[in-house]
């Protein structure tokens, strides 16, 4: 009597079930990395786990509230400090305006092409890092702003010191930022000292970036400051990215092995700023003329 319902309740054996689910997850992995047939799947699951993410963010929020509460005991001190910093920043800003005017004048004198005007000042959004992943392979963080806050994929995330990364996936209430330390992430940069342009890539390790494909005799030194060059139109120019940590010029290798550390607290900060998108570049006419006849 007992055995028949048991059989129905248990269904196939554990090995069969394991094989079924292993096959299913392998198919999902292939789908996720290569084919991307169901892009809606990920946002759907993201909506399900959103309340859990908020819940796990509560302790950090409470900590912030407590800090705010204790800070409210000395408002005048903080006010003084902020005013001091404001004045200092103001002075720098004034100097920057003067420099900009001078730069423009010099360019006019040289007859140089006018710089393409970029609309970076439009709207920047403050965000908080909700979650940093546990496994060290995925250098991505989740921010607490998403489609509801008009976040778009491709926007740049910075902190008070430099670049943190770029938004790659947007969900209804959260978004995913690929950190600059990610293996598949590259930024066009420029060395401040001699305006040497190159591309810096993440190395897949914490706090490490690589300058690949620079010849051994390239003029680069330790502690050189690398800033975004603005080439490509995704990153606005002049934001600090990294400092060169070590250079290994092995004469047997083709390229120098250059390691640098990011300036921004890529895996430390909680408050970040999402910059607005730069104006899109004009389409390449050669490409469009090639596509059009195909459509007709």
């Amino acid at each position, binding site marked *: 009597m007992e055995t028949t319902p048991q059989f129905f*309740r248990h269904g196939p054996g*554990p*090995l069969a*079930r*394991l094989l*079924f*689910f*292993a096959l*299913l*997850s*392998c*198919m*999902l*992995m292939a*789908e*996720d*990395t290569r084919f991307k047939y169901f892009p809606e*799947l*990920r946002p759907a*699951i*993201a909506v*399900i*786990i959103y309340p*859990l*993410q908020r*819940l*796990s*963010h509560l*302790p*950090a929020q409470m900590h912030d509230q407590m800090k705010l509460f204790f800070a409210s005991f000395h408002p005048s001190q903080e006010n003084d400090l902020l005013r001091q910093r404001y004045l200092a920043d103001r002075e720098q800003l004034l100097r920057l305006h003067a420099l900009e005017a001078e730069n423009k004048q010099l360019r006019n004198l040289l007859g140089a092409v006018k710089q393409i005007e970029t609309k970076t000042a439009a709207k920047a959004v403050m965000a908080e*890092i*909700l*979650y*940093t*992943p*546990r*496994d*060290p*392979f*995925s250098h*991505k*963080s*989740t921010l607490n702003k998403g489609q509801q806050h008009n976040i778009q994929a491709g926007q740049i995330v910075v902190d008070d010191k430099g670049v943190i990364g770029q938004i790659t*996936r947007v969900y209804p209430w959260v978004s*995913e930022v690929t950190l600059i330390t990610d*293996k598949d992430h590259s930024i066009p940069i420029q060395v401040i000292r001699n305006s040497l342009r190159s591309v810096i890539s993440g*190395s*897949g*390790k914490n706090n490490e970036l690589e300058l690949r494909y620079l010849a051994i005799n390239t003029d680069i030194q330790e502690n050189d400051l690398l800033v975004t060059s603005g080439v490509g139109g995704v990153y606005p120019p002049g934001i600090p990215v990294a400092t060169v940590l070590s250079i290994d010029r092995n004469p047997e290798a083709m390229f120098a092995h250059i390691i640098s550390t990011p300036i921004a607290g890529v*895996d*430390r900060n*909680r408050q970040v700023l999402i910059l607005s998108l730069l104006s899109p570049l004009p389409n390449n006419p050669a490409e469009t003329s090639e596509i059009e006849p195909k459509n007709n």
Partner: protein
Amino acid sequence: MKKNFRSDKHLGQDILVTAKGWYVFLSFIIALTLNLLPLQGNALVIRPDFVALTLLFWCVNQPQRVGMSIAFCVGLMMDVGNASILGQHALAYCVILYFALIFRRRLGIFSLVQQAPQIGLILLIMQILLVLIALLSDSSFPGWHYFLASVTGICLWVPISYLLSLPLKPRSDPSGYETNR
């Protein structure tokens, strides 16, 4: 009655009341929340996988409550939360569930403290699997400290399984419940 309860403890899980569905659900919610805590630095390195531990607890003590479909769904949630390849954790959780199902009867003989190293072995298998998947998708080896999470998992197995089994301890006469199985 107390004596009877004590002697049964080493014989395994039969004295536990069958868990209600909402309790299993709640345990997974809490485990997922703990997994999603925004930790940084060293805390991130030694954080054990609470979801895996909860899965193993239910599998060892009441295998009828969690199937592989639940492990798969929870794994997908971890993947989205982690922003890793979709299906990576799902596969890992299904595999550890399978191993736990195989070792279940053996594990039942041991006390909680003796179970811990064997659970650690299963956790290690899971981490090796995760590393292999990541290596196949062109990531670099994260370093040996990655496996510290298994060690903290071993340390936390006893308190976690004790806490999870607390509400399942029969309050009244335990002999009235399924002793003649």
